C-alpha cells in the first residue's frame, strides 16, 4: 500500500514538473539564445544549451554609450527611493486607519478604496499636465513622488495591524506611552515581516514599471531598465541574440529578488488577497 502511494507521488511530481518546465521554457530559451551565434537562434530542434558560449551580446548590452549600467542606476534610484517612501508612508497611514479611533476614519478609508477603482489611464493625462507645469515632467521625480503613495500598501499594512491584538498596545498605554511611541517601539518591530513583504512587492512594481516611465520620461539618459530595453530592441531589431541578452539584463534582478525573498512574496500576496 505504501509503495503504491509513493509511486503515485512520483507520477504526479513528474507530471507537474513537466508543466513547470514548460512554464519556464521562455526564460531558458532567452538565456540560451543570448549566448548563441545569430545562425543558431532559430535552430530546430531547439538546442537548450549553446554548443559554444558567446559573451559578445552581453558585452554589447553592458558597454558603449547606451549601456544598461545607466538604466540600472536610474531604475535602482527610482525604485529604492519610491519603495522606502511608500513602505513608511503606508505603515503610518495604516496605523492611523487601524489603531486610532477618530471621527471620519471609515469614510476616509472608503475614499481610499474607491481610488483603487480609478484606472491609471484616467490619471495619466492630468498628471502629465500637472507635472509639466510643476517642472518635474521628464525628471525622475515624476516617477518617485507619485511612487511613494500606494493605496494597496495602506490596505495591506492595515490588514496586518488589525491582526495584532489590542492588549499589546493597551498595556503600553497604561504605562503612559502615546501612539507615536507605541508605533515606533512596539508595532513597527512586530511588523517587520509585513514591511519586508510590502517592500519587496513594491520594489518589483517599480523595477518592472514600464507604463509610467513611458509617459513621464523622454531623455534617454533618464531611462529606467524597461524603457532602455525597449530602446535597445527598437535599435537592434534584427539582432535577436542581443535582444535576448538585453531581456536577460531586465529579468535577472527580479529573479534574484524572487529567489531571496520568495517566502515574503508568496506570504504577502496570499495574505493581502485572501484576508482582504
Amino acid at each position, binding site marked *: 500500500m505504501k509503495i503504491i502511494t509513493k509511486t503515485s507521488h512520483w507520477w504526479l511530481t513528474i507530471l*507537474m514538473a513537466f508543466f513547470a518546465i514548460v512554464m519556464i521554457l521562455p526564460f531558458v530559451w532567452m538565456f540560451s539564445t543570448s549566448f548563441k551565434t545569430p545562425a543558431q537562434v532559430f535552430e530546430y530542434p531547439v538546442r537548450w544549451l549553446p554548443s559554444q558560449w558567446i559573451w559578445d551580446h552581453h558585452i554589447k548590452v553592458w558597454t558603449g554609450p547606451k549601456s544598461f549600467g545607466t538604466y540600472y542606476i536610474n531604475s535602482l534610484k527610482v525604485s529604492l527611493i519610491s519603495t522606502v517612501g511608500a513602505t513608511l*508612508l503606508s505603515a503610518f497611514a495604516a496605523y492611523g486607519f487601524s489603531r486610532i479611533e477618530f471621527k471620519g476614519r471609515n469614510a476616509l478609508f472608503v475614499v481610499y478604496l474607491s481610488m483603487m477603482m480609478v484606472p491609471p489611464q484616467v490619471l495619466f*493625462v492630468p498628471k502629465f499636465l500637472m507635472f509639466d507645469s510643476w517642472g518635474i515632467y521628464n525628471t525622475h521625480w515624476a516617477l518617485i513622488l507619485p511612487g511613494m503613495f500606494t493605496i494597496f500598501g495602506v490596505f495591506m499594512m492595515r490588514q496586518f495591524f488589525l491582526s495584532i491584538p489590542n492588549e499589546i498596545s493597551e498595556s503600553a498605554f497604561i504605562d503612559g506611552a502615546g501612539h507615536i511611541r507605541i508605533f515606533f517601539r512596539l508595532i513597527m518591530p512586530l511588523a517587520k515581516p509585513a514591511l519586508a513583504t510590502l517592500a519587496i512587492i513594491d520594489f518589483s512594481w517599480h523595477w518592472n514599471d514600464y507604463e509610467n516611465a513611458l509617459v513621464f520620461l523622454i531623455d534617454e539618459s533618464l531611462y529606467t531598465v524597461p524603457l532602455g530595453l525597449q530602446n535597445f530592441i527598437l535599435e537592434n531589431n534584427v539582432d535577436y541574440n542581443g535582444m535576448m541578452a538585453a531581456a536577460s539584463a*531586465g529579468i535577472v534582478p527580479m529573479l534574484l529578488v524572487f529567489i531571496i525573498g520568495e517566502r515574503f512574496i508568496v506570504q504577502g500576496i496570499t495574505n493581502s*488577497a485572501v484576508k482582504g
Partner: protein
Amino acid sequence: MKRNWMKRQQLLGYLFIGPNMLGVVLFFILPAIYSLYLVFTDYKFMAPKMSFIGLDNVKRLLRDEIFYVSLQNTVVFLLAVPISIGLAFLVALALNRKLFFKKTLRALYFMPYITSGVAVAFVWMLLFHPKQGPINAILTSLGVSNPPGWLSTTEYSMLAIDIIWIWFMLGYNMIIYLAALQEISGELLEAAKIDGAKPYQVTYKIVWPLVSPTTFLLMITGLIMTIKTFGIIQAITQGGPGNSTMILSLFVYKNAFRYYEMGYAATISWALFFIIMLITLVQWWGQKRWVHY
C-alpha cells in the same frame, strides 16, 4: 478630560494619515477631478487655446470605429482571465497533494508573474516568430502544415497576446488558490470519500464550491488588473497589425501621448472607468448565484 482625549485622538489620527493623504490628494484625487474636467474640453497639448465643447467628446467616441474595435479586443483580452484562473485551479489542486519538491515547483509556476512584463513580451515576440520561431517549428513538426502567423497577422495577434497573459497570470492565481485549498478541512473530504464520492465528484461538488469566494476574488482583481494593462502590447505590437491588438487602455495612451488629444483621451479613460465599475457591479450581482460563503 475625556473631551481633551478625544481631540488628541483626532489630531493623532490625522497626523498619521496626513502625509499619505497629501499624496493621495495630489496624485489621485486632484488628477481624477482634472481629468473629469478635460472630458468637456477640446484641449490639445501645446495648442494655443482650448474651449468647452460640452459632450462633443462623448459623441465623437460613440461614433469612433476604433473605439468599438478596441472594445472588442479588450473583451478578447479579458478572456485570458477566466482561462488562466481555470488552469491555475488545476495546478493548485495538484500542488496541494502530497508531492516531492513541492516548494520548488510552486516557485517555478510563480516565476513569470514577478518578471518584467516588457522583457518577457520581447522573449515571446521571438518565440512567436511566424517563419522560424520555436513555437511554429514545434507545430510544424507536430504535423500542422500551415501554422498561424501569430503577432504578425490580424487574425491571430490577440490570441498570441492572450497566451502570453494566461502564462503571466497563472502563477499568481495558483498561489491564491493554494492558500484557499489549505483552509479546506481534510475531514470533510475524508467523509465524502467514505461516503463513496469519486475524486472528480469531490473536486466538482465540494472543493470548487468551497473555493468559490477565492474564484470570485480572482475574477474581479484579474479583470480589473488586465483591463488597465497596456505595457506588453505597446512594447511588442503598438496595437497592430492594423488595429488588431488595440485595446482600450492603449487607445487612451495613443490619443494622449501620440496625438496629444488630451480631452478626447480623458473621455476614453472615463469610459474605461465605467467598464471597470460595470464589471465589478455585474460580478457582485452575479456572485449570489455561484459564490458560497
